[in-house]
């Protein structure tokens, strides 16, 4: 095996040779890190003319891209926001709309008597939830910036949130806010409004197909991107900065299996079809470093047949702080419901394929406190996602769970709440948890689906993308799910939206402020 140092040296040599070669023919060859003959770009020449010239180019129109574009264009930098899909919003517009922030302008946690919280405590949960694989500085920036990010979309964008906070898996405090509309669209629409005020809208159907950089010298900036638009291929120049906000790669089965072989196409995926990760590769091809690409999260409670994370699939996630139960189709609990997503997902996977689906059991009294909405519950009943009954035994029949077992499980759990102790799974019992002793009751089917990539491009807290030798790549920024190291091995649910908005804004401002 080649020694790591040797490898680095030979890589450097290779890059240097490439640079010299390019100078010899007039500096026109584009940087290409791929092995000779294996990449379509190996003989690529840098564009000699540009079809469009911008100050800032943002790739992606989800939470991070919208935030970056609003800040950059708002700061006076001429900005374009490229979206490869025919619709804006990426995964953000279909996400569950849960937003972790230790406080909000209404102070719901305090008003509802749901204990204490602080940015430090949120930061601690980030690290514990990610098994301390997180780059602490990256996580800290989010924990301390989350409230400001929430206020921004509420005050400037008109986003509305439900009047409660929940304690979601892996969090030690009631800090998860739910969007009024029950999905991330609440915030993408708010951000789109903020963008409109700043004079920018997403440019759809524009797929980036290469990032241009002359060489890997730490002083060598990225120059622009190649874009496929309709049947045309265009070159766009970025004078001040290129912000990558292109999301994760959960829909790319080959790529996710390259890092986590277990995640075959047998698993459903909650993501939109565009979450395919090619921007990670283009960034790597111009020298960007990645980290923790194998940390890929499954959402434990997706719709079992399609993998959809619909509004109903958010109930199981928001419920544990209020006493929701997760049971197998045999009617038995299988995990501490307050556990992290990875634990809840793998607890189901370990039961075997034949155990699909499992169920969440909750009652009417829990709906509103856990961020649910009675009208939404009616829709869930109508479209068959929820089943309901006035007794646990009837509910069991409707969900095809053995009634006697489920009744026994519920009774035991009710007793645990009274005792303040869960001897089976050691769940920390809180006063906010509601006993399942009054109907109507509800059940919703669930099963894990591939959901989120914790790993990605290496950035610093200024969102500068770091190259494989540890230097920031000039003019290259990244924010959102395309980046890695913020969440460690496991992202706590509801930490993603604040992450994307906080870092999207930083990236947009940084790119706009840079000298051309």
């Amino acid at each position, binding site marked *: 095996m080649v020694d790591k140092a040797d490898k680095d040296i030979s890589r450097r040599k290779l890059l240097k040779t490439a640079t010299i070669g390019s100078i010899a023919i007039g500096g026109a060859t584009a940087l290409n890190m791929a092995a000779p003959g294996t990449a379509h770009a190996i003989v690529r020449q840098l564009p000699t003319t540009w079809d469009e010239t911008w100050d800032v180019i943002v790739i992606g129109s989800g939470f991070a891209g919208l935030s970056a574009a609003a800040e950059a264009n708002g700061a006076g930098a001429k900005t374009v926001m490229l979206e490869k899909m*025919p*619709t804006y*919003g990426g995964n953000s*517009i*279909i996400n569950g709309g849960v937003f972790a922030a230790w406080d909000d302008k209404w102070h719901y946690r305090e008003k509802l008597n749901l204990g204490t919280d602080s940015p430090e405590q949120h930061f601690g949960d980030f690290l514990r939830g990610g098994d301390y694989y997180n780059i602490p500085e990256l996580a800290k920036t989010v924990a301390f910036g989350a409230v400001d990010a929430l206020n921004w979309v509420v005050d400037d964008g008109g986003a509305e949130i439900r009047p409660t906070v929940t304690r979601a898996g892996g969090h030690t405090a009631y800090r998860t806010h739910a969007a009024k509309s029950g*999905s991330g*669209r609440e915030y993408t*629409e708010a951000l789109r409004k903020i963008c409109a005020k700043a004079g920018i809208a997403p440019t*759809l*159907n524009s797929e980036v197909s290469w990032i241009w950089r002359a060489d890997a010298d730490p002083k060598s900036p990225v120059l622009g991107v190649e874009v496929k*638009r*309709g*049947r*045309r291929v265009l070159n766009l120049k970025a004078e001040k900065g290129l912000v990558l906000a292109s999301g994760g790669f959960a829909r790319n089965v080959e790529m996710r299996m390259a890092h986590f072989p277990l995640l075959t196409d047998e698993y459903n995926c909650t993501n*939109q*079809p565009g979450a395919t990760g090619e921007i990670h590769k283009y960034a790597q091809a111009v020298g960007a470093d990645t980290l923790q690409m194998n940390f890929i999260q499954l959402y434990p409670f997706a719709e079992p*047949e*399609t993998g*959809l994370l619909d509004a109903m699939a958010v109930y199981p996630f928001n419920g544990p702080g209020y006493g929701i139960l997760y049971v197998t189709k045999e009617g038995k609990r299988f995990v501490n419901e307050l556990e992290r997503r990875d634990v809840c997902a793998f607890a189901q996977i370990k039961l075997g394929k034949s155990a699909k689906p499992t169920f969440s059991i909750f009652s009417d009294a829990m709906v509103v406190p856990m961020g649910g909405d009675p009208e939404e519950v009616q*829709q869930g009943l*109508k*479209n068959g996602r929820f089943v309901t009954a006035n007794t646990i035994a009837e509910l069991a029949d409707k969900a095809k769970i053995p009634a006697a077992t489920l009744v026994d499980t519920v009774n035991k759990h009710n007793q645990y709440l009274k005792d303040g102790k869960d001897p089976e799974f050691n769940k920390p019992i809180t006063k906010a948890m509601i006993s399942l002793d009054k109907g109507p009751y509800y059940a919703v089917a669930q099963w894990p689906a591939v959901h989120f990539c914790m790993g990605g491009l290496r950035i610093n807290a200024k969102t500068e993308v770091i190259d494989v030798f540890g230097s920031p790549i000039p003019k290259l920024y990244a924010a959102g799910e395309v980046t890695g190291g913020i969440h460690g091995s496991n992202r706590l649910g509801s930490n993603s939206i604040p992450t994307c908005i906080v870092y999207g804004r930083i990236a947009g401002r940084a790119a706009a402020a840079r000298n051309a």
Partner: protein
Amino acid sequence: MPKLHPTAIAFCLWLAVMMPPAIGQVANDPCSSCHRDLSSVLPKDHPHTQATASGLSGCLTCHSSGQRGEAVSNPFSSRLHLVHVGEKKAPDCTSCHVVIPGKQFGLIGQNISWDAPKSDDLAAMNDIAVSWATSSFTDHLHAKASVDCAGCHGKSVPRLDDTVENQRCLTCHGPIEKLAEKTQNPDFPKRNPHASHLGSDIACTVCHHAHQASVVYCNNCHRQWTMKIPGAAD
């Protein structure tokens, strides 16, 4: 439509007088080079006219060339294209059009240029014209209703990266509320492609592709729903 330049008209007249062609043929005219007796190919219900004697310019005295850019149905040009374009019909655009890539796109014998499409635009136009005339896609549905390029794309000749804005579609198909009403699902009011969670300003072209099979974008995620769309793949 660019008006015929008086000089061009004078020139045509001069040609007609000075260089009388063979019987039934008009010199430098796209129609009469194939149709010796142009009056014989007029629709049966066409009013009696002598204008065919002067070839296409005779037609254009009454019919707009259909390149004004307005969204109208049944323009003269779409009917002409529909009968001429297709796999087994006129071989290419240049049978009728003067085409100089990057410089001119006009009509043989007419002093008109609508635009200056480049060669790759022209190649795509050629393919698309065939699709429009013969496919099972939305373009052919429009062709059957006599809506041609200009009906959707407006004044200039469509370019490779051209798209059609919602307002254009809604000129004939709108307003969006009317479409939403048409596709309402009485059992699941939220399951409506024209009033979905992706917003009512979603581009029509997300699902409705003109020159390729239309697809229900909803089905990317909502795989269990059966939804139909006109102009889908066969």
